[in-house]
């Protein structure tokens, strides 16, 4: 049984939730997007049972069910309206995996505008919670379309704060800043270098190093030995196909 790219990406997203933020295991995982949601549910169903997950509409759900619809058999263990989510963000007990229209080598992320802010070429969502998330708790990113247009030398608008900006704020203001992982459709990336620059952590099976370098608009840090992103175990594959994503919605997100 071989895994699809969507399943490999979902497992990479799940692995981003290993080793919870700031030594606390009971944190809210906030995956934005289908594959991060599949990943967070897989993490909770396997190695991270203490994670809190919401249904996306104010309920904390104790059991793991399929993505794509609100499960009638869900077990609600808590209530998190947006106001309580913001309090939780600022208390730090959260790990968000957001999207990024652009990301740079320092982990600065943009979801606000393309082009000048005053009169953008393309107005996107707006910064949403990115500034507050990145300065308050662990943040990872999921980018389904890895290309020189998404992995850029310089983002047009810093929505989520990267390591260079955090460093400039000084140790006190940046003490909760923690950009953990970037998962794309080509590989997994981290910032575990002395300079806190984006480093290739692993290549997804079938993706060449050259392809990732060509698809990235800045110089990635490339380790001497490049690992391959792990494939799901047979147990994980069964969970993905039978419980968490029986409709293969993850694959649809990759096709965009």
């Amino acid at each position: 049984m071989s895994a699809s790219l969507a399943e490999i990406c979902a497992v990479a997203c799940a692995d981003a939730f290993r080793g919870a933020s700031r030594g606390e295991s009971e944190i809210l995982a906030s995956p934005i997007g289908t594959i991060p949601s599949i990943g967070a549910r897989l993490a909770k169903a396997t190695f991270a049972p203490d994670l809190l997950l919401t249904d996306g509409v104010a309920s904390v759900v104790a059991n793991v069910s399929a993505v794509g619809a609100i499960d009638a058999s869900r077990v609600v263990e808590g209530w998190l309206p947006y106001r309580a989510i913001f309090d939780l963000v600022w208390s730090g007990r959260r790990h968000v995996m957001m999207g990024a229209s652009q990301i740079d080598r320092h982990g600065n992320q943009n979801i606000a505008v393309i082009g000048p802010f005053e009169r953008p070429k393309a107005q996107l969502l707006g910064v949403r919670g990115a500034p507050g998330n990145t300065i308050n708790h662990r943040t990872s990113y999921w980018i389904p379309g890895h290309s020189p247009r998404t992995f850029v030398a310089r983002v047009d608008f810093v929505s989520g704060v990267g390591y260079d900006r955090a460093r400039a704020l000084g140790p006190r203001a940046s003490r909760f800043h923690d950009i953990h992982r970037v998962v794309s459709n080509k590989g997994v990336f981290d910032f575990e270098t002395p300079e806190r620059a984006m480093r290739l952590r692993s290549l997804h099976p079938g993706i060449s190093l050259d392809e990732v370098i060509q698809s990235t608009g800045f110089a990635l840090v490339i380790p001497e030995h490049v690992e391959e992103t792990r494939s799901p175990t047979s147990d994980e594959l069964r969970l993905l196909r039978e419980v968490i994503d029986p409709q293969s919605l993850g694959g649809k997100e990759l096709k965009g």
Partner: protein
Amino acid sequence: MSDKRMTEAEVVGELRDGMTLGIGGWGSRRKPMSLVRAILRSPLKDLTVVSYGGPDVGLLCAAGKVKKLVYGFVSLDSIPLEPYFRAARQSGAVEAVELDEGMLQWGLYAASLRLPFLPTRAGLGSDLLRVNPALRLVRSPYDDGEELVAMPALELDASIIHMNRADAAGNGQYLGDDPYFDALFAVAARRCFMSAERIIPTADFASHGPKQSLCINRTMTSGVVEAPLGAHFTACEPDYGRDEAFQREYAAAAADPAAYRAFKARYLDLASHDDYRKAVAGGVR
């Protein structure tokens, strides 16, 4: 207790050109759409609109009512990007004050507490401060000396919100999963006008939901409008979900001026909310 019932037209009669108007709800959820449509019908102009934005912002932009927008995001939820908001930004038609979602909450909270600002870590290091020099920093007066963003109070001249139930005295009840920030929009404003799916006798609130669902008290409101289907086409759970087909029609019309004119003629150029309800009921969707 005074009777605060009014019509949509009477609410709009209380608003003035150039006002700062807060709009409750979140994205395409529980927006006071009958009041927004009444503003579209009026000659009001040059509004500063403060919102966790959805089609309220899109429609007001498309109608040229907005001078300045204060927002954390503008989205239709199931359709991530709001096309009319995008067009207004990309043509330079509106001045934009972009904020982190939590900063927007803090600005409303500061205004509601009559404080000049509230400190927050959110915004530090981001480009929000670069494009908005009006945002200042403040240093903690205590030993930590930490530098934080001083989020200024977002004082509103008026706000509009939509509830599931209200009484004539101006108490409001939400029956969905999330009160959003409506109570802050209400208190941050000099006057708040609340529409509701149904106006019921005060004694009946208890039979609709628990007392925790009474998130708006009558100190917060100046007027109450009964507006069944008043949040359409946004979601107003549990009374009704989002009208996704209608929302798709709304969003698609942005691609073509003729399509927008047809949409406007059919659903917006109407004399009253009752006419809108009839138009929606008769729609082929």
